[in-house]
């Protein structure tokens, strides 16, 4: 038995519907909202600002600090313990590493840019949604960036390559070949991947093919992120000078 029809009826290479917005948190210097399917991420950026404790300061460049957090009610009904845990620490770290290649903080020595990612609702792919939201928020905050970053998960469900797995696909147990879940983050201008993780087992050929499909999906997502930013500043086009 192979996995020919996806559980939610999507096509093999189809991502879930996306809603993206910029500037949703007024107190922050920049903010972003990213909803993909039932996964919702908010990101708020504060800074560049003074970094304390002082020993963390880097005189050669500013630093980026990400914080990923799932809200207590965000799961499938069981209370998720918020705050730092092994998983949240890891995701905070990989988010930071995924965004770092595009942000340029050379202009802000000894300072910090804080990114807070909160997920009020999750249905798999939360780190990818977090990265997408954070990337919108950083651009909104006027941070110098070479490019936006978009992220999506690819993988195989019982041997079939699919894009943007939801929770039920991740937990699919019926097949013999199992599930592989590969979150990726992609930088379009350099065509580089800045995040690559995997759960499960996949053959080499399928991995290469899946990554190519993932990059295509990311190109789609980047357009949605760009539009979200332009939407916020839309009328700024005309200036009364």
């Amino acid at each position, binding site marked *: 038995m192979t996995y020919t029809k996806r559980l939610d009826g999507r096509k093999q290479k189809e991502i879930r519907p996306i809603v993206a917005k910029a500037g949703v948190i007024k107190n922050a210097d920049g903010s972003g909202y990213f909803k993909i399917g039932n996964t919702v991420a908010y990101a708020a950026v504060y800074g560049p600002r003074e970094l304390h404790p002082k020993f963390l300061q880097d005189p050669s460049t500013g630093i980026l600090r990400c914080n990923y957090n799932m809200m207590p009610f965000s799961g499938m009904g069981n209370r998720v313990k918020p705050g730092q845990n092994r998983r949240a620490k890891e995701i905070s770290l990989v988010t930071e590493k995924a965004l770092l290649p595009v942000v340029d903080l050379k202009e*802000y020595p*000894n300072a910090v840019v804080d990114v807070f990612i909160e997920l009020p609702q999750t249905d798999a792919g939360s780190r990818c949604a977090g990265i997408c939201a954070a990337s919108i928020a950083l651009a909104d905050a*006027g941070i110098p960036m070479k490019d936006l970053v978009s992220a999506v998960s690819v993988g195989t469900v019982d041997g079939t390559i699919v894009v943007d797995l939801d929770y039920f696909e991740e937990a699919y147990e019926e097949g013999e070949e199992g599930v592989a879940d590969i979150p990726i983050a992609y930088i379009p201008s350099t065509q580089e991947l800045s995040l690559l993780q995997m759960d499960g087992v996949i053959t080499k050929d399928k991995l290469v093919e899946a990554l190519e499909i993932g990059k295509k999906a990311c190109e789609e997502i980047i357009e949605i992120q760009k539009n979200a930013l332009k939407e916020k500043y839309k009328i700024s086009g005309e200036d009364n000078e």
Partner: protein
Amino acid sequence: MGKLLVGERSVVVPGEKIAEGLDYLPAHGAYRKDDHILAGKLGLLTVDGRAVKIIPLSGRYMPKRNDVIIGKVIDVMISGWRMDINCAYSAMLSMKDATSDFIARGADLTQFFNLEDYVVVKIVNVTSQKLVDLTTKGPGLRKLYGGRVITVNCNKVPRIIGKQGSMVSLIKNATGCKIIVGQNGIVWLQGEPMSEVIAIQAIKKIEEESHISGLTERVTEFLEKSCGKIEPRESSEEQNDEQSEEAQEEQQEQ
């Protein structure tokens, strides 16, 4: 032959291709990658001859030499004051740049500026490590007494001041408030309590609507509605000083 890929004065987002070919040169906020010029931050695209630059629409204040700003004293040190200037870096006002009075060794510096005092200062120098030096020697630079302090988006400061300080003097004349706008987005104002409130509303209105054309008309209308017909006010000497100061700032911005 190079060509622009997006219209001038349109909003660009990081990574967006702005121009093609080697004829255009990347200036502030843009960078070159192979044959293309890409946006390096979110902002408004402007083309000046061959140079392509991006005017930021958001972001924190970045200290710049010769900017007139409003700072708050956060620490009194052995030979000067440390000030919060609404950015990632605090600034230093040294004794010798603060006053020409004789100060005895070991004197109490709080008699000049105490903690929490707001001071109009000018940036003398900014180093690569963002150490900021300030001065209070110059026209219009002084300690502020009373009044209110509000914070606005520092990218909207040129709009609030207006051409040659036209916008800010409009508000000054209508409300009778004294207003000083710092380049770092800190605005100080003083007047009758009610007119202070109106002035703050007007400034917030400019901040929110600066991108919609016909701003001056709308602000005039708002001010006329709130405080009656605007009479040209006899300007005191101090006010003239401030205005010329801000006008200079505005020109530097351009």
